[in-house]
C-alpha cells in the first residue's frame, strides 16, 4: 500500500506502446504459425496455400476455414523422423540439464561462500562469457575438438591415446557445447538463492549436531530449490528447441526438433510442416513455459 494511487494512473499509459508492439510482433505471428500449420503445402512463393485474403469478406473466410486441415499434424505423428526428433530433443534437454545442474551447483555454491567482495568479481567472471557471442563459443570448441585440434594434440602428446579421437559430430561434443553455452544460465539463479541464504542457518544446523553432508542435504539444498527450479527451466526450455549447437557439433544421423524445423523450412521449403512442428514444440513446452512464467512473475513482483 505504497503510493500506488498516484503513480498508478500515469504509469499505466507507459504500457501502451510496448503492449501494442508485443501483440503485433509476438502474439499475432503465432496466429499465422497456427493458421499455416493447418494449410496445404504448395509449390509456390510463399510456399503454402491458402493465403487468407482479408479483403475477400466473410465467404472467403468461411472458405479458408473449410480448407484448414490437420494433415500436417497427422504427418508429424506418423513419420518416425519427427517422433524421434521430439523424443531426442526431450532426452538431450533432460540429460544436458542434469549435467548442467551437477556442474553448475558446486560452482554456484563455491561463489556463494566467497567473501562478499570476491562474490561480485566471481559473478562478473561467470557473466562475461555469456556476453560473448553464442556462435563464437561454439566455434571455439570446434577449434579445440576438431581432428587435429588442441585436445587431440594434448592427448597424443601425453600418450593417452595412440590415434586422434573423433570428437566432432558426436553427442559428446554436443553435450560439451550445450553445457558450455548454458552454464551461466544455471549458475546465476542458483547463486542468487544460495547467496541470499543466511549462513547462520547452516551454522545452526551444525550446532544442532548435523555433519556437513547433512547440513547440505537437510538445510542448504532444500532452501536452494527455487534457484534449482529457475535454473532447470531456464536451461531445459531453450535446449529442447536448440538448433545451432547440435547442428555444428552433433552428428547428422539423428536430429533434434529445432533442426528438423530448420530443415523443413529452409531446405525442403515445406512451411506448413515446419509451422506444425513449431506448434507441436510449443505444446510440448507449454507446461515448463507456464511454470517458468509464474516463477519469473513471482520473483519480479515480490517487491510490489
Amino acid at each position, binding site marked *: 500500500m*505504497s*503510493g500506488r494511487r498516484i*503513480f*498508478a494512473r*500515469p*504509469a*499505466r499509459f*507507459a*504500457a501502451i*506502446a*510496448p*503492449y501494442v*508492439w508485443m501483440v503485433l*510482433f*509476438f*502474439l499475432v*505471428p503465432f496466429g*499465422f504459425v497456427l493458421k*499455416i500449420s493447418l494449410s496445404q503445402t504448395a509449390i509456390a512463393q*510463399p510456399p503454402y496455400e491458402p493465403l487468407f485474403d482479408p479483403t475477400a469478406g466473410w465467404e472467403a473466410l468461411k472458405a479458408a476455414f473449410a480448407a484448414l486441415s490437420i494433415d500436417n499434424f497427422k504427418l508429424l505423428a506418423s513419420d518416425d523422423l519427427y517422433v524421434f526428433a521430439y523424443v531426442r530433443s526431450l532426452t538431450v534437454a533432460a540429460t544436458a540439464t542434469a549435467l548442467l545442474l551437477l*556442474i553448475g551447483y558446486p*560452482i554456484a555454491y*563455491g*561463489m556463494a*561462500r566467497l567473501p562478499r567482495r570476491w562474490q*561480485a568479481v566471481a559473478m562478473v567472471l*561467470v*557473466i562475461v*562469457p*555469456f*556476453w*560473448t*557471442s553464442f*556462435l*563464437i563459443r*561454439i*566455434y571455439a570448441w570446434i*577449434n579445440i575438438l576438431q581432428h*587435429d585440434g588442441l585436445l587431440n594434440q594434448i592427448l597424443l602428446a601425453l600418450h593417452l591415446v595412440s590415434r586422434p579421437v573423433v570428437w566432432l559430430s558426436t553427442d559428446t561434443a554436443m553435450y560439451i557445447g550445450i553445457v*558450455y553455452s548454458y*552454464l551461466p544460465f544455471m549458475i546465476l539463479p542458483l547463486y542468487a538463492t544460495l547467496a541470499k541464504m543466511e*549462513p547462520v542457518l547452516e551454522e545452526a544446523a551444525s550446532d544442532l549436531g548435523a555433519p556437513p553432508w547433512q547440513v547440505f542435504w537437510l538445510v542448504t539444498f532444500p532452501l536452494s530449490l527455487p534457484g534449482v527450479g529457475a535454473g532447470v527451466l531456464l536451461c531445459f*526450455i*531453450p535446449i529442447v*528447441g536448440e*538448433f545451432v549447437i547440435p547442428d555444428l557439433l552433433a552428428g547428422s544421423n539423428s536430429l533434434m526438433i529445432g533442426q528438423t*524445423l530448420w530443415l523443413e*523450412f529452409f531446405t525442403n521449403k515445406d512451411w506448413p510442416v*515446419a509451422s506444425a512442428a*513449431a506448434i507441436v*514444440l510449443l505444446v510440448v*513446452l507449454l507446461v515448463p513455459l507456464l511454470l*517458468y*512464467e509464474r516463477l519469473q*512473475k513471482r520473483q*519480479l*513482483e*515480490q*517487491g*510490489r
Partner: protein
Amino acid sequence: MRKLSRLSRFNIASLAMGLAFLYLPIIILVIYSFNASRLVTVWGGWSLRWYHEFFNDRAMIEAAWMSLRVAVSSATIATLLGTLTAVALSRGEAFRGRTLFSGMLYAPLVMPEVITGLSLLLLFVALNAERGFWTVTIAHTTLTMCFVAVVVQSRLGSLDRSLEEAAMDLGCNPLRAFLAVTLPLIAPAIVAGWMLAFTLSLDDLVIASFTTGPGSATLPIRIYSEVRLGVKPEINAICTLVIGLIAVIIVIASLASKLSSSQGESAAPL
C-alpha cells in the same frame, strides 16, 4: 571453539575448474587468431594476417556493418519499450490484459528461437514486407525488449518506493518525481539493458536467418555458413574482434555503474 571454515577446498576447486572451463576455449580461440599458419594445428608464429584478410573481405565487412546497425537500432528501440514496460508493470495499477502482457514478456526469454523466428517471418510474409534491415531490427527488438524489461524491472522492484513519495512530498508531480528521482536511480539498469540488448542482437543467428532477406546477411549468418565448411583462421580473427568489442562494452558498462555507485549496490552487467 573451532570456527567452521566457510570456504572448503572443494569449493575453491569447483570454482577454479568452472572458470577455467568457461574461459579456456575463448582464450585459445583468441591466441590462434594471431597464428601465422593456415593450419590450425601448426603454430607459425604471431601474425595479424587473418585480421588483414578480414578487412579485405567485402562480404564479411558488409555483414558486420549490417549487424552493428541492427544491433544499435534494435537495442535502442528495445531499451525504450522495455523501460516503459518495466515502469508499467512495477508501478502501474492493474489494467485490462495485464496478465497477457506479462505472459508475452516472459515467454520470449526462454522460447526456442526457431519458433520466434519462424512466427515473425510468417508475419512479414503475410504483410508483404520487404525483408532486410528493418525486419531483422523489429525481430531483435521484440526479443531483446523483454530482457531489458526484466533487468529494469528488477532494479525498480528493489528501489525504495518512499524515495518517489519523498519527491512528491517535496513538490514534484508524479512525472517530475519519476524524472528527478526514479530515472537517475534506474539509469545503470537501463544502460545495462541496452548493452544486453546490443550483444543479444549482435549474437543472434537463428532469428536473423528467418527474418532477413537475400543479400542482407548479418555477421553471425556469414560466420555460420563459413563455420559449417570448417575452421578458418579468418573466423578466429573475426571472433576475436567481436570479443574485443564486447569487452569494451563491458568495461563501459562497469564504469557506468561505478559512476552511479552511490546507490550502495553496484549494478551487475546483467
